[in-house]
Every structure is written in C-alpha cells, then in structure tokens.
C-alpha cells in the first residue's frame, strides 16, 4: 500500500514574511528546561540546549501562528503576539 508522502512545511502559504516583526518573545531566565515547547511545535522551532529552550532565529519563516508554545509553557516564559497585520500565514482552506 503506497503511503501518502508529505512535506508539511510546503503545505503552508505565507505573505510578506520579512515584515512580520518579532512576534514571539522569550524570557530565558524564566525557562526551567521542561521541553514542552519542543513537543507541541509542528515545525520543530523550539529546541533544548544546556537545559534551556531556544527559539529558531528565523522562526517567522516557518511559524504556523498557532500559539501552542505560549499556551503550554508552565513558566509563562513565552510571550506570543501575532505577526504585523496583513503578514504571515494565509489560510486558504481552513
């Protein structure tokens, strides 16, 4: 049985990715290294290094704007706003 092949990151449309601004702010001093943010992100934008979470430097190009990392962080170390109006993900078949 042939498997359905998928490249999830190619299945997202975006506009003006260079104009989104910085919409995830992360306070490393609050992070306790639990790693939950690394598990809920669809596109692996969070990683753990030396007991602290790290956000991919060019997250704006891949972030789905779901805000799961903000919701799950028990230390409230992640502050999520949204990309600038009219930029970022465009959902065509939501």
């Amino acid at each position: 049985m042939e498997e359905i092949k998928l490249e999830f990151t190619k299945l997202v449309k975006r506009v003006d990715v260079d104009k989104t601004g910085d919409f995830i702010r992360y306070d490393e001093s609050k992070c306790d290294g639990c790693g939950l943010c690394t598990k809920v992100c669809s596109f692996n934008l969070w990683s753990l290094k030396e007991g602290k979470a790290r956000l991919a430097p060019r997250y704006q190009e891949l972030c789905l704007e779901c805000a799961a990392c903000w919701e799950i962080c028990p230390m409230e170390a992640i502050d999520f706003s949204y990309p600038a109006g009219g930029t970022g993900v465009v959902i065509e078949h939501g």
Partner: protein
Amino acid sequence: MEKWDVVVVGAGPGGSYAAKTAAELGLKTIFFERGRRPGDKNSSGCGLGQRWWRDFPEIMEALQGLPSVRKVEMVVINLVDENNRLRYRCGTTGSDLCANRWPHGMDGISIYRRDLDPFLADLAVKAGAELRTSTLVSDVIMENGQVKGVRTEKGEPFYAEVVIAADGAMSTMARKSGMRNRWGGGCTLVPQLDFSADPEKMDDVIGNAEWVWFGALYGAYQVNFRDGFHIGAGQWLREDWDERPTDMVKKVLQFPAFQAMCRAIEAKPREYQAHLLPWLKKPPKTYTGGMMLVGDAAGFPCPLEAEGIWHALTSGKIAAETAAWAISKGDASEKALAEYERRWKASPLGKEHEFGPEFVDLWNSTIFDPKLMARQIQLLLEFSMLHPFSVVFDWGDAHIDCFNQHLEHLLDLAPQFADFGRTYLAPLARGIWPKNVKRILLSVKPRIPILGKLPDNTFLRLMAKLSKSLAPYLDPSINQEAPVPREVFERSRAGRKR
C-alpha cells in the same frame, strides 16, 4: 478624538456578528481584522449544524450557494482497531424526530472559512459597521481599571463606550486587560490537514456526510467540503503531551481504508494548519469593566464536540445587544456588564454549558486516553456483533448459536468494563430528564409483582425512598425537562452518608 460606541476586535464569525448586530441597533461600530481579509487566519471544523436553521435561517439560506459548501445529511463513523484495520462502519441521518424538529431536519453544511468569514463580515459592513483589515490590535486602553478602548500595533488609539473582544483563543484583549493569561490545561491544539479532491467523485464515494475515524490508538474527524476535505485531530495542551502535532494527523493516513478513500476521490494533501481551541468544562468570567468576550476568546465552544461557530455568533449577538443596553443607561462598568453573563446563561448558549463537565470528563478520560480508547473500541466491536445485521453476517454456525456465542463473549468481558461504566458512563445519567426517568420506571412497574398494583404516584414516592440514586429525579419540585442540578445529586449523596 473620534469616539466609537463599540469597538470589536476580530472579524471572525463572533466579531462580525457582534459588529452587524451593534450597527443594526444604531451604534457607531468599528471592527478589526489582522489578516488581509476575514478568514485569512482561521481554520476550524467548519460544520454549521441544524440549529443554524432555527437561529440564523437567512444566513444558512444565503450560504448554500457559496463555492466550498457541501451539505451534511449524514455522519459516518469508522472504527479502526490497533492494527489499523477498519472493523466497523456505521452512520446516521437521524430519526423521524430529527426530520420534524427543524425545517431542514438533520441537515447542516460544511464550509471553508475563506467563504464563511468574509460573508459574515460583509453583513456587518452592509449594516453600517466600519471594517479595518490588515490591522493588528495589540493593546487595551485602561482607565481606572476599566477598558476604555484599544490600541493598534502602530499605536493608533480607538476609544469606545464598549469593547467586544472576539480575538480568538489567545485573546490579546483578555490578557492585556488582566482577565486571564493562558488557559492552563483547558485548551486543545488542533492540527488539520486539508486535501483537494475531485468534487464529483466525492459526491459518489463520500456523499453529503461528515466522517469520523475512531482509531484504537488515535482518531480524527473528517470534514467534507465540495472539492476537498480536512482531517483534524485535537488534544489538550497539558504536561503529558508527548507527540508532534504533525505525527497525530499522519497516523490516520496509515489506515488502509483511509488510503482507499483517498484513491477513490483522487485526494491530494493541499494545506496544513494548526489552531488553538478552548474545550472547557465551563466558560470562565466573560466580562470586565468596559469589555465583553465572545466566541473562542470567552471559551464558549461546546463541551461535547467543541463546535464553536454557532456559539461565536450567538454570544456576539448577545454581547452587542448588551452593549446597546449599557450605552443607553450610560453605564458600562463591570457591575453593569454582568448583565451579559445573565443574558447568555439564560439563552440556548447557557443551556449548552449546564451539562458541560460530564461531557468533558468523558472525553478526557476515554477518547484521549489511548489505553481506555483501545478497550472502548473493543467493547463497541463486541456490541456491534449483537446488531441484527451482524448476526445475519455471521454464518460460522447456526445464526442463533452465533448470537449466543457473541453474547457470552460480551458477558465474559463485562467485568473488565464494569469499572469503565461506573467511572465514565454513569455520570452522564445526570443528563437524563426527570420526566424520562419517570416514564422508564412506570413502564416497568406493571411487571413488578405486588408493587405493580400501586398507584403511579405512590410507586414513584416509594422508589425515591428506596433508591438515593433515583431520588433526585423524582423530586416533585425539579424541572422535568432539564438535567437535574448537580447540587441536588450532591445533597442526595450526602443524605446517604448520614
């Protein structure tokens, strides 16, 4: 400085319907959308159910002609075991009762948000509300602890008598006004994978139906549109989260029956989305001084199946009407806006949430617990073999012997499921209307020796005395057509202890 009567943050269904209602009531209204157009940022299950025909019939009528619409006349459930094998497929279109309840019976529609959201926003604009797109509202303006307006990301202020926050699950307005921070366990994350498909082949293979895949280890809903569908799989965002969202939807793609369906309708993966969806036992506080929350921002989605669009429209309408009432009194203080909560609680929206915790507890402990789910699927499969059609299908022996063998097997398994029934299914009994409990008791009464001869009222009084579980339903002061209030059960249980 220009001042507005009502500022609405968000042009999803809740925001647009609030703006439409406010404008129709003669209020000077503006509403904001962060996308280039409404719908740009939204994804959901997108099913509009039967009660839309009762509450928003003109909208339902108008939506029928939009490109992505597929009618929903049936739901099809697919049960898949732990080896990914399709074991049982059943469906329903409802009974005669459903056919007669609303003008369109069980029929609903599925519609992509790129069709629905702009349509609803347009209704608000036609009613006289001003829409600003590509505008992110990033802060509230507070004075003396009360919301007095909002500020856009560029710093532009918009002052208003009343702010209606329809800015979704992450509600910046709720956070910035200090109403709450994150949901802390009550919110789900829903990854969705959309597929394109051949519309005519979908008509032939899928029909006008929603599909659900219940796997022993994972499951997903399948919402079918005119030229495609999406599958979605949600889970509560909690500390035991252990799976990448993309992997959750990928698992359904491994079901051979799902792959066969994809081949038959020429389905191709088209878009991936993920969104937060509050799925709460009950909504938290929905108002503060100068501001009301509607839709997902308020945590209104249905506690049984997390539908939220009807809830968004209903709460948007009530919030706008409350805003008009508050403005006419010249008082939008927190005390005055408590009226919003009184009104939504008295509406069909409030009724929806009277029986919330029992439903959420059931899901929490079963569908989203793989071990319990595997057992539940096993139980459903055993039950399915007692179904008359299944008995016909089993010609392994004389049919009546096959039936008895299946019954015996089910009885063997019963002790394993007793705990499950007591813990997860029994609490749902609170939802049975007292008048139906009475009818069940009175229908068995004639078959009970001696007691069967008692007058109905004497019999029911005796039952209430004999059984503390039945007593709450038989209390004569209780509403006959609503779940028995939780306190009445608690009082009855406390009585038993004494």
